C-alpha cells in the first residue's frame, strides 16, 4: 500500500470540528523552554510541529484523534499549568469514528 501523508490519512476520517475553539490549549511562546518537545513526535496525528523558521511550536487541534497521549507526554498539559489545558471537545464535536 502506498505511503499516505497525514493529511491523506486524516481525510479518510469523519470530523465535526469546532474550528474556532480548541479543546487543547498550549502556550506556544512558553513552549520554547521545553526540553523534550515530546508532543512533536508522540502525537499519532502530527498535530504538533516545530516550525524551524519562526523557531516556535505550531499546533492545530483540527484533526486531533483525541487519544490523550499528549496530555501525558507533556508535563505542562498534564498539570494544567497556566497557558496549558487538555479537555475533550464539547457536546459531540471532534472525531467521529465510523469503524473503531
Amino acid at each position: 500500500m502506498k505511503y499516505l501523508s497525514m493529511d491523506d490519512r486524516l481525510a479518510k476520517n469523519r470530523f465535526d470540528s469546532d474550528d474556532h475553539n480548541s479543546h487543547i490549549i498550549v502556550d506556544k511562546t512558553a513552549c520554547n523552554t521545553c526540553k523534550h518537545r515530546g508532543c512533536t513526535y508522540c502525537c499519532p496525528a502530527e498535530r504538533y510541529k516545530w516550525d524551524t523558521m519562526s523557531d516556535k511550536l505550531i499546533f492545530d487541534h483540527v484533526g486531533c484523534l483525541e487519544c490523550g497521549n499528549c496530555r501525558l507526554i507533556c508535563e505542562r498539559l498534564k498539570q494544567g499549568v497556566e497557558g496549558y489545558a487538555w479537555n475533550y471537545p464539547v457536546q459531540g464535536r471532534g472525531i467521529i469514528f465510523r469503524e473503531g
Partner: protein
Amino acid sequence: MSEEKFQVIIIGAGVAGSAAAYTLAKAGREVLVVDKGRAPGAKNMTGGRLYTYALKELMPEEWAEAPLEREVTREIMMMMTPADSVAVDSTFGSVNQQSYTVLRARLDAWLAEKAEEAGAMMVPGSTVDGLIIRDGKVAGIKTGDEELEADLVISAEGANATVAERAGLIRPVELKDVAIGVKHVIKLSEEIINERFNTVSGKGAAVMCVGECSKGVSGGAFLYTNKDSISLGLVVDSQSWKNSRLPLADIAEELKRHPALARYIEGGDLVEYSAHLIPEGGFKSLPQLYADGFLLAGDAAGFVVNRGFTVRGMDYAMLSGIAAAETANEAIEAGVYSRSILKSYESRLQQRVLKDLALFRNSHDYITRTRHVYKTYPRLAADLMRNIYNVDGSPAKLVSGLVKKTISGRVPYFDVLKDMFKGGRSL
C-alpha cells in the same frame, strides 16, 4: 424518587458503561448514560478481538446477534526484522466461539441499543465536565450548563479518566502506565480476505508481531481480519516511545510496508486512521475503585492485561460493568450509597478481574524492560531460520550448532535464560 434525579448515572457508553446500563435497566432501575461521542462508539477504538465469554454472561440470549466480525480460528505470532519474519501459525479447529474480531463503532452502537431497549436512557453528544459532590459524596454530573443528579455515579469513561481524576477520586494516570495504540482500518473484499488468510466467511485470523514494527521499542503490532476489512495497528509503551524520540506517525505508516504484513493488505484502501490509549500499568497501578456514591469500571479502573500475545480489556470492561451494576443494585436496595456498602464491588471483582490482574502483575514490567524481545530475539529467530533453511554447498551443521552460531556474540546466554525464566513467570 424526584423527577430529575436518576438512580444511577453512567459516564461513558463504551463496553463497560453499556454493560452496566443493560444490567441495571434489566433490574428495572432508572439509569442514564451520557457519552461525549455523537453516537455511542463514535469515540472508541480497539485492536481488536473480544473474548466472548463476557458478552455471553452479559446477555446469554442476545449475544449471538451482536455485530461480531469474524471468529478467530487462526493465531499467528510473528517476529520481524527489517526484511525477514518468522511466524508460528496455529489453527484451532477445536476452539469454539471463544473470540471474535470487532469494530467498536458497530459493537458499541449495538450494545447501547440493547441497553436502551432494556429501559436505559442514552444521551450521546454530552461531555461530562465535572461531578456534583455534596458532603464528600458524589451526587451527580455536570455537562455544559446542566447539572444532573443521581444516587450513584459509575465512571466508565475509559483510559483517559479526566472526570474521576479532576474530582480527586483517583490519582492521576502516569505516562509509564499507558501504551498508545494507532490503527489503520483497510477495506478489502470478503473474498480476498478469505483467500489471503486461507479461511472462510465468518472465520478469520489474529496476528501479533514483535520486533521491527516498533523499532525495538517495547510494544508490537497487531492485525485482525474483520468481515470485509483489516485492522492493522501498532501499540507501544508511551514512556519508552517518548524516550526513543522516534516519529510515531511515520512508524505507524511504515507498518503497512513491511513485507510480512504488506502482502495481507495489498490493494486495500484506508477507510479510517485512529488512535487510543491503553492502560497497561496493571495490578500495581490500580486506582481506588469506589468512593461515596461512586464506582469505577473498565479502562477507567485500569482493567487491562497485555501479555504481548493476547490483549484483554473489553471482556474485563464488561465483567466490571456487570459487577458495578450488581453493586449499585445492592446499594439501591439498601438505600445506602456510602463506601461501606460499595466496597462489595471489590469482592465481586476479586474472583475474576482482579485475580487475573494480580496473576499478571509483572507482565507490564517484563514487556517494557525486556529489551532483547524487541530487537535481538527477532533477529536471532530470523537468522536461525535462515541458517536452517540455507543450503549453499558449504559444510552442513547440526541444528544445535546453528543455534550456537546464531546466538554467539549477539546476546549473553545468561540473558536469554533469564528472559525466558522471567517471561514464563510474568506472562
